[in-house]
């Protein structure tokens, strides 16, 4: 997948501080891999309703590519940590600026009504349909844990099972849902 916004060169060489050798970084791969992670992190921090999310995420990933090209990444940490640091700083910077204007920080992320995003809405409906077909013992765990937002221990107490068993049921529900949705 070629990214038209990604100017040449498509790769840079960095000195790996730990290994003492030179390492090739594929910028396109980095762009593809970390864009979704950066977007997720930004939306989680600023809220999915925030109209600035996409712009901030794009700005961060462009900034990362520029820094890599300028050789500002010297391999002292992992590339993931390098991008995480840039992302966190930009988010803090955004919140500070907004706070000055709005006099309060944005609310932490809440779960969105994916009404406007057709793809997300369809996906949510598919998952919801699959949850309805789940065995009641799995459905009730999802209901109490995610919908009612009870803690693992509270769910365990309500259902008379161990907290570990709650996690196992949640994980198994997800496996079943994946199978059902794939069919």
């Amino acid at each position, binding site marked *: 997948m070629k990214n038209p916004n990604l100017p040449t060169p498509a790769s840079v060489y960095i000195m790996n501080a730990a290994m003492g050798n030179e390492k090739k970084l594929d910028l396109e791969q980095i762009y593809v891999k970390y864009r979704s992670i950066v977007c997720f992190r930004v939306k989680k921090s600023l809220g999915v309703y925030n109209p600035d999310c996409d712009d901030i995420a794009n700005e961060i990933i462009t900034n990362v590519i520029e820094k890599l090209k300028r050789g500002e990444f010297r391999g002292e940490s992992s590339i*993931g940590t390098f991008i995480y640091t840039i992302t966190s700083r930009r988010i803090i910077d955004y919140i500070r600026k907004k706070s000055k204007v709005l006099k309060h920080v944005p609310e932490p992320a809440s*779960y*969105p*009504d994916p009404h406007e995003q057709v793809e997300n809405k369809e996906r949510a409906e598919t998952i*919801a349909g699959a949850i309805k077909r789940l065995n009641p013992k799995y*459905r*009730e765990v999802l209901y109490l844990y*995610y919908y009612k937002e009870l803690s693992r221990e509270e769910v365990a107490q309500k259902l*008379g099972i161990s907290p570990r068993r709650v996690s196992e049921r949640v994980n198994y529900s997800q496996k079943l849902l994946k199978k059902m949705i794939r069919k």
Partner: protein
Amino acid sequence: MRNCKFEGNIDEYLMNRLTDDKKNEFEEHYFNCSSCFEKMVERDELITAIKYKGQEIFKDEPATEAVKGETSWGKIMAFLTPKQWATVAVSATLIAVLVFSGLLMLKPPSPQFFINEDAVRGGKITLISPIFEVQTVPSQFEWQRLGENAEYRIYIYDNGDTLWQKTTKDNFIVLPENIKKTLASGEKYSWQVKAFSPEGALISVSSRVQFKINHPE
């Protein structure tokens, strides 16, 4: 595949339940761990769907508000996953097999009852000869001795009927000529020995052993 130790933080992170330190640590982690990030995106989709469509999904949920009164059996079954129960069942079967094999190997000898100093009830009489096939009519029947003062009664059967019986204190007996003559070549006979105490109490019975007198060549 071994799970990442941070996987347990996914739900807590998505539901804003982590402390700031833990949250920062987990955020840095998923920038470095594709597996956790992928699982987190999947879980995020699930939570989003539940939050968005929850009212519709769970409208018929009957027992979700009340504390569930599961049966004791249900609680026991819920303690482990089906896979764990299967492992427990297989392990229990293996242990049972091992224990029973051990018990069989350690099986004590037949119980013995002391009638007096010389006679022991429950001892085993082993017949020595004749057994299976013999070439000529046997003139002597021999068995293993059972104690010093036991008395033995030998029975020779022809087709289930007692052909001859005799009592002796030896562990062998010589067949009288007139009885020898009644035993025919090519026929099958069986014999058995019973042991008695000097007081006449039965203390042991051998198994009934069959022998065949082959035709002379």
